[in-house]
């Protein structure tokens, strides 16, 4: 990957880290914003998906998009089914923790991709 590709990845990392942090805050505090639904859903699918898929160096946009969406949907399914199976049904708390973890993952991507972009520039 070249410097431009890392720059694009960096933008994605930052946007999704912020979205996940916002989604986690909104679901944890129960605040009602008009955009809350979209923010939380986007964070659950794209944020969680990229937190996982961001560790790969996939450059093909369609392939990366496929992996992100699939991973995001699958994580939501598996976490929720685990909550059902464990009889621990606290959706707000579960989503907050999940998005918090995704925010952490995306923040790590920010650090990693920033370092790799610097290395690429040198």
């Amino acid at each position, binding site marked *: 990957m070249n410097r431009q590709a890392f720059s694009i990845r960096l933008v994605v990392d930052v946007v999704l880290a912020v979205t996940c942090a916002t*989604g986690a805050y909104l*679901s944890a505090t*129960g605040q*009602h914003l008009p955009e*809350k*639904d979209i923010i*939380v*859903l986007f964070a*659950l699918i794209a944020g969680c998906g990229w937190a*996982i*898929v961001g*560790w*790969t*160096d996939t450059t*093909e*946009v*369609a*392939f990366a*998009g*496929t*992996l992100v*969406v*699939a*991973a995001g*949907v*699958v994580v*939501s*399914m*598996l*976490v*929720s*089914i685990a*909550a*059902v199976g464990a*009889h*621990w*049904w606290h*959706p*707000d708390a*579960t*989503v*907050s923790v999940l998005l918090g973890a995704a925010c952490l993952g995306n923040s790590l991507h920010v650090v990693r991709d920033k370092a790799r972009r610097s290395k690429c520039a040198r």
Partner: protein
Amino acid sequence: MSDEEGNTVDDDRIAVRTRDAVSSVVGAMLQWKWSSITACALSILLWSLSLSSIHPYEATDTGLVSMLPVIWWLALLLALVGLAAEIQRDPPRAAPCVLSLVALTLVLHGTLPATEVTPRFSAAYTIAAFSDQLAKTGSPLPLLDARMSWPALFSATGMAARAMGVDSRWFLRWAPLVLNLLYLLPLKVIANATLKSPRARWLALSVFLLGNWIDQDYFSPQAVDLLLYLAVIAILVRVFATRGRQPGVVRAVVAFRFVAAIADRLRRILRLPKAAQPGEMPVPPRSIAELAFLYSIVLAIAFAIVASHQFTPLAMCVVLFVLAMAGRTKLNLLWVITSVLTVAWFSWLARTYWVGHLHAVFGGIGQVGGVVSGTVGTRLQNASAERLLVLDSRLAVPAVIVLSAALGFWWSWRRGRTQWTLAILAVAPVAVALLTNYGGEVSLRVILFSLAPVSVLIALLVDAGLTTRTSLAIFVVVIALTSAMFPLARYGNESFEAMAPGDVAATDWIQGHVPTGSIILVVIDDLPMGESPSLSVDVAAGLAFAPTDKDRRVLTATAKTDPNAWILLTRSQDEYGTVVEGFPSDWLSTLEKRLLATGNVEVKYRSSSAVVMKVHVNTGSKT
């Protein structure tokens, strides 16, 4: 030279000049770098203007087709022109192609959600009811409905809905549009892995959009699982593909003289070359760590599919098995793992479903005729001429698509490139129809699973090194035919699949006012409401044409045995009865009058399109 001859020569010159002028103008327009973007912007503009003329709650026997305005058709044409203008460039630019496909998706799959105030399709409300049940309690209720034995999507939706501060119906309205856009991602990966030219890759996506009339993209486990299934296939063909390294047993069978002779005879009949090369693109190298990571993603997706739907895991097992046997994937054990997961889930976590219903589960194995008649035969009964047109279009579109896919496969092989992976992906799901007892709807599911690879097979007609004038003409005809028939096939059921706001208001009123434990009687189970632990929905089809005295006996008996019986009559039932069952056009209003005349019912709620009545024992002596 006579006057007549002189006039003819002049006419010819004028005709030639006009043709040259038109072709130079068209050529200049196509070369203009903003042509595709302008066409797409115009398409979206015209589409949004056309929406005010489309009224789904007034749809006729041909659905929305009779009320689609000219500008809607122009919008469809412009979206296709936008794509055509871009792909004639070498290479086509990604952004205008994406914009064209978004415009095409909006026109084809956004029209219904954009014109309907409330979400459509009764089954979607059932899914939302399951999700809401899980959102509130965190407990699936498999005894309430067998589908709750596969609760992964319901629990995920319930969890997300609670965190988003909405109810599960939020997901329904725009799901078809969003899902169709998302399907394009894995399909593009599959096209990239199998087609040579960027042009053909983009066109494969447009074929998919035009061929997806199947109406299985409402918010449901099968629609979401199709996305996950395509993601698995995309990973397999992009990362774990091989070019025909078959297991030893399969090689031995293929080498068997009798099998080889038949294959050779078939090849000669079809005039196919013996020395054809695999047409799939080479797989880019990846590190072991990345391969392991992607394999774990595939396993996680497979588990999610197994936990969320009955049918998709079966299709996935069959496809993975055939891919492994044909040597098209390095993951030879994936089908074993998926099968074990499927059987384990079915035996353990879905036992509520099959205990005591083994015949229902396995009784239909091999009954191909039953599946076909269930799909086609029963739907042709009582149909009006307009309705028959819709049903015919629903047979014609898949026929056109499947035939042209077969032609694409043959065309490619004839020119020395085989596409066995695509052929397996397209054909293997058919086996599931023979192995399950899923009713007539299984045909729709099979078409749905096959549609993505079939679209790529059709795009072979315009792939690099394979395109001729003939193949291009065939491809254009396929696009024209599917474009023309799509609205009839896709929007043809809209008269009864649209759920009017009045119907939804009535079911909302029931949820809020009808006491727990009540029975809701309906004539046809086509309404925006699912079962819940507090209310059950019973179909009392006999009410439709029973004589008045029988009405009263039925109602009195119902009221005596169950003092909490209610009747719900909706526009959707009215339309379904008229269009599908062949009832007279005024059957529901007549029924309502008859029911009221018995004195055994009392109207408790009335909306613009529905009525809710309470059944009680009439102590009077009215006859």
